[in-house]
């Protein structure tokens, strides 16, 4: 029996060989492997779902317009009693001077419809896109002379209203003629032409917000400081700050979801460590046999970690397969007055999968440490 008497150096098992051997081991016990994967899958699926929620909520409040400076009354919750007019408009225009693209009024009221509190906003339709960042998705912009109203997509999702539907706003029937996409604080609101709103509320020339659109090349902070000096009794904010403030509570839920996501990843690590520990407990003799064959503790650990990472990888794939349809089934959902669009960023997926695999690796290493400290002859007797 002539064989290879190879005088090999200190070459270690390649990653490919480790994975191949680990895969062979897992395939040899399909039922056990399936069970191990199924135990980890709910953790992986919940991880993806929580990451989606965290990502979605993280986007709330970052879409505000930093270039839109808003002047209003400090008591913004009492909208019906805020009355800004031409004097304020003139003063703001003079203060902003050449740093402003436009200085325009905005009517803002809260309206209760179908047990929901919605924002009703009104501005000159010519400013809807340029100043307020609205995009027409469907239909036609409201006719200022008619009883037309536009709704944002978020309102449509929340209420089910369609183009042509009639809705009653402060006692008047309006026809939905347009669906808009709005961002930031305007994501869920009804929109009317300014003149129509003034007629509806019977307060011509009166508005609640004064919007100063700062030029792109101007220093918005400087303009805001000047406006604050000019309006010492008023509140002067930029829209992004308003939005950030308004969404702070909801975004904190996102932070909580992120914490749970991290817990999910730790859970995967613990699950993986548990699977490795069980394998070692049941198959200590197999580890002893590997040591008999000349496998170093490090090489055995390499096989164990490869096995754990394959199990975790399979659980992640299966978890994604479970979670994805759940995420894709709803393009958006409403949380109080916020419409949240589920989003799972590739970076989050890659980072999470990487972290999960690293956790699985760590779990397997920790689980294997104790077993691999035992002498080979003890492992054989186990």
């Amino acid at each position, binding site marked *: 029996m002539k064989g*290879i008497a190879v005088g*090999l150096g200190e070459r270690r098992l390649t990653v490919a060989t480790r994975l191949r051997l680990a895969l*062979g081991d897992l395939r*040899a*016990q399909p039922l056990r492997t399936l069970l191990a994967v199924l135990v980890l899958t709910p953790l992986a699926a919940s991880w993806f779902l929580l990451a989606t929620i965290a990502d979605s909520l993280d986007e709330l409040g970052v879409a505000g317009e930093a270039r839109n400076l808003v002047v209003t009354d400090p008591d913004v919750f009492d909208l019906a009693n805020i009355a800004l007019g031409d004097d304020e408009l003139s003063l703001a225009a003079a203060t902003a001077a050449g740093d402003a693209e436009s200085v325009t009024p905005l009517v803002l009221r809260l309206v209760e419809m179908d047990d929901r509190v919605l924002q009703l906003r009104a501005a000159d339709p010519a400013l809807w896109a340029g100043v307020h960042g609205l995009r027409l998705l469907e239909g036609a912009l409201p006719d200022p002379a008619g009883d037309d109203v536009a709704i944002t997509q978020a309102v449509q999702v929340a209420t089910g209203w369609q183009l042509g539907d009639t809705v009653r706003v402060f006692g008047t029937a309006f026809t939905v003629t347009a669906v808009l996409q709005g961002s930031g604080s305007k994501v869920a609101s009804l929109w009317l032409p300014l003149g129509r709103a003034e007629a509806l509320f019977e307060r011509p020339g009166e508005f609640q917000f004064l919007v100063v659109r700062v030029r792109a090349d101007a220093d918005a902070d400087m303009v805001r400081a000047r406006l604050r000096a000019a309006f010492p009794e008023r509140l002067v904010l930029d829209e992004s700050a308003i939005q950030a403030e308004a969404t702070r509570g909801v975004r904190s839920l996102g932070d909580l979801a992120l914490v749970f996501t991290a817990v999910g990843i730790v859970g995967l690590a613990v699950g993986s460590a548990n699977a490795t520990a069980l394998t070692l407990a049941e198959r200590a003799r197999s580890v002893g046999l590997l*040591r008999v064959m*000349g*496998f170093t503790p490090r090489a055995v650990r390499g096989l164990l970690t490869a096995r754990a990472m394959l199990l975790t990888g399979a659980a992640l794939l299966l978890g994604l397969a479970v979670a994805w349809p759940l995420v894709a089934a709803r393009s958006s959902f409403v949380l109080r007055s916020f419409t949240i669009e589920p989003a799972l960023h590739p970076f989050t997926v890659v980072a999470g999968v990487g972290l999960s695999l690293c956790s699985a690796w760590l779990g397997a290493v920790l689980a294997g440490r104790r077993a691999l400290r035992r002498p080979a002859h003890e492992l054989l007797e186990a």
Partner: protein
Amino acid sequence: MAVSSFVVPCSSVVALHGVTRRYARAGLPVDALRGVDLLVEPGELVLLMGPSGCGKTTLLHVLGGLDRADSGTAVVAGVDLMAASQAQLDRYRQRHVGIMLQSDNLLSTATAQEQVALRLLARGVGWKVARQEASRLLAHVGLADRAQHRPDGLSGGEQQRVALARAMAGSPQLVLADEPTGELDSDTTIEMLALIQRSNRETGCTFVIATHDPLLATIATRVVRLRDGMVEVPA
């Protein structure tokens, strides 16, 4: 005994002198080896015989670098097993010694081919070469057609033949076997003996076999008897 007082003959594959090993079993000390002296020359096929509990398996574990003696000198294939670090013992098992255990020799989830290839992979041989060599060794022990079977699809005799092929993988200087025929019927035992003898003669590999089976004496070049952890000196 001090190492310096023990001169290792250059030609010996195994050179043990005054090897002792004490275990604690159920809280009580057990002297498994009580000063074993043993020299084995290259190409020998040595049987270790003796009653149960006489220290055969412990001695094989010491020779295989699986366990360390408490005292004495143990030089095998030129490696001082008493002074070797754990990493050196791992390398020693990779390169110099093949081991057949008493039972459950094989990994339950690996095919026959993988069992043999694993030993070569452990010493750094690439996957493809390891598999080719494993196939050749399995053919040598008459199991070419069983290469893709796992242990639960192999008979006891076939499993031992896989274990022999694995022990011979990489052409070690020494093969240690613990009761290689212990669980085989008489016909299979004879086949196994023939295979061991052929392997010994064709490769010149040294065999040290622990057994109760007197049939094995028919192929041995020498029989060493152990009693109470010591080599019995013939009267």
